């Protein structure tokens, strides 16, 4: 075994640089260039503190990957996304009340009948899941097929990308799936799983486009799924009329997602978001 001299001569990072530049995260996400990666590797081989940090990130990353779908499906507490949302709501409410009081005062001064400005909001039944929950996506199962070494280039690229998909690393699967489609744009499975990977990586517009293209390729094992997940994309975009159309098409095709689509349609109706 020859002794590696590159690492001896390479520039060594210090702990401050590692923390300040979020090097551990970038390393685990494969976002460092070769020189930085090698410097960091040498650093954590010698630094107990940075190695501990890296181990923590790695084990947390692994566990997050395993529970990614569940975390994405979680409704965030109101305090996060909506912490400041109350400001315009309160301002509007105050305006409505003020206008009401002012109008009331005007009417009171003319016909002496008291007026009360009341704003009512139609509340969704509390046992109906929110739109966030209804838009949540569970990744469809993918079962790898046996390859014998004489497959075309697009299939090989697709299978390679799907290894990332199987690990729950959906964002990492996207470039490989796009490469497969560049080789053969009619690869329907690559098209469908690209849409899924984009949907799970919060690239909703691109995902919707891929599902529409999957549908445009005509009847395939992915046709029904493409309608169903396109409906999910529309729910995320709050385009519920379009979502309803896709769910109805999913039900018409009568394959694996039919019951789920039916249930989703009912829940949207219960939310009062679409007409019965």
């Amino acid at each position, binding site marked *: 075994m020859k002794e590696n001299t590159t*690492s001896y001569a390479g520039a060594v990072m210090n702990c401050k640089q590692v923390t300040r530049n979020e090097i551990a995260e970038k390393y685990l996400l494969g976002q460092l260039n070769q020189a930085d990666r090698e410097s960091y590797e040498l650093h*954590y081989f*010698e630094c107990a503190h940075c190695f501990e940090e890296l181990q923590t990130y790695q084990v*947390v990353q692994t*566990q997050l990957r395993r529970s990614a779908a569940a975390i994405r499906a979680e*409704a*965030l507490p109101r305090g996060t996304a909506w912490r400041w949302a109350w400001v315009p709501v309160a301002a509007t409410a105050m305006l409505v009340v003020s206008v009401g009081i002012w109008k009331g005062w005007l009417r009171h001064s003319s016909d002496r009948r008291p007026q009360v400005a009341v704003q009512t909001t139609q509340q969704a039944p509390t046992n109906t899941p929110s739109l966030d929950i209804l838009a949540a996506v569970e990744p469809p199962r*993918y079962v790898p097929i046996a390859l*014998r070494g004489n497959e075309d280039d697009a299939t090989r690229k697709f299978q390679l990308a799907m290894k990332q998909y199987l690990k729950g690393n959906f964002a990492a699967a996207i470039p490989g799936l796009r490469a497969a489609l560049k080789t053969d744009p009619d690869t329907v499975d690559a098209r469908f799983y690209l849409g899924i990977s984009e949907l799970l990586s919060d690239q909703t517009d691109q995902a919707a486009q891929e599902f529409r293209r999957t549908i445009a390729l005509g009847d395939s094992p992915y046709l029904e799924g493409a309608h169903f997940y396109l409906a999910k994309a529309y729910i995320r975009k709050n385009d519920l009329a379009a979502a309803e159309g896709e769910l109805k098409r999913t039900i018409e095709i009568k394959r694996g997602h039919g019951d789920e689509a039916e249930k989703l349609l009912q829940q949207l109706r219960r939310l009062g978001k679409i007409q019965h």
Partner: protein
Amino acid sequence: MAWSYYSLPFGASLIKEDRLPSEADVTALVERIQASDTAAENELVRLYSRRIFVMALARTHDREVSRDLTQDVLIAVLQSIRNRQIRDPGKMSAFVCGTTRNLINDYFRSRAQQPVVESLSDDAPVAETDDLETVLELNQVGNLLCQIDPADRRILLMTLVEGYKAEEVASHLKLSSEAVRQRKSRAIKKIVKRLRNMSRK
């Protein structure tokens, strides 16, 4: 001594801040290995196996392959020490790091030359081959993740798995970038603290 598979101390503690010994101590360790001291070999395995495994896992994303690579690196390093091929024993960390990198690169090169062969799977979609200790470790981290704020969980997922920048997460969650950074940092510190407490018990 026949090259056998080393017992890797992965399950001993979850996250370990294992300080490396001084250059003088490592030099002494190398001399003991060269004198066929088995305890010294085990000490070297204990010192470096986790670091090798972590690097292999970060690069290959495959635990089983990473375990095999860890064994290969340890065997190669011990062989080099025994054959007196180490020029500067005080720089052992750099040598082990370089050897790990070389073997990982060899692994990728050999894999690129092989046809991709996937076996049919009729079970879970993710073919995990974790041993019981790893499963327990990950379950402990899973429990800790359940205990933190759901928004912090989402921040960790978006940054550590999906590779979003703090600004992108901030825009998605309607928070400031600074708030995202602080919440992520606090969540990680909380997890580290609890893991340390668990390791001490």
